[in-house]
């Protein structure tokens, strides 16, 4: 069991302007095969990654927003969002996508694993992780 680690993916960049948000997601998707305890945290401009309603039809870029909604199926257990980062950007919980999660063995279900946290709590969550991937 010592091979199960607490992974935290730290996302601080806006989507589309750079590829980091999308290539970070690709790690999360691939990482699902490794059965770790996986959380994502969105802070600073990273909170923009979860805003619903993205439309790339006129920019000819791949719209990867739908992928976030499926993360529950890829073993992601928590998606934390920094409250202060949201507020500075004029955003609220209503602007964000919801991500459902289900444990197929225990049939435990969670409607939405996206959770808004205070900065102190965010800091603690990162400190309690064993690996922080930065993008």
């Amino acid at each position, binding site marked *: 069991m010592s091979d199960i680690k607490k992974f935290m993916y730290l996302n601080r960049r*806006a989507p589309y302007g750079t590829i980091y948000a999308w290539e970070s997601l690709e790690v999360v998707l691939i990482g699902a095969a490794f059965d770790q305890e996986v959380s994502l945290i969105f802070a600073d401009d990273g909170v923009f990654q979860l805003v619903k309603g*993205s439309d790339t039809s006129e920019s000819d870029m791949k719209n990867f927003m739908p992928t976030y909604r499926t993360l529950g199926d890829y073993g992601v257990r928590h998606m934390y969002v920094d409250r202060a980062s949201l507020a500075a950007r004029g955003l609220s919980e209503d602007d964000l996508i919801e991500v459902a999660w289900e444990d197929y063995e225990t049939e435990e279900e969670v409607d939405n694993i996206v959770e808004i946290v205070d900065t102190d709590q965010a800091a603690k969550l990162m400190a309690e992780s064993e690996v922080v991937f930065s993008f």
Partner: protein
Amino acid sequence: MSDLFTVNKSPFEKNSLEAAIKFSLAGSSILMIEDGVYGAMKGTAAEDMVKGAMSDRKVYALKSDLMARAIKDDRVIEGIEVIDYAGFVDLVEANDKVQAWV
């Protein structure tokens, strides 16, 4: 004599928009593209700065970049003109030169 300033960085991450405003003369135009369009959003910590600049500068934002970032028309600060790439080309022509503030 008027210049077009392009800004492609989020105002929450980098100081490009602030700098472009500071170094642009009254009568200049500022065009937000890429992550720069976050500066066009209502209700953010950058709104006052943008509105201040709009008193004597014209501010534009690129439509396809707003759309990709889920910034609908009703979230865009009033007075900011939303343009497409053809409009971007027209702006370049209408101004004496273009300065990229990256």
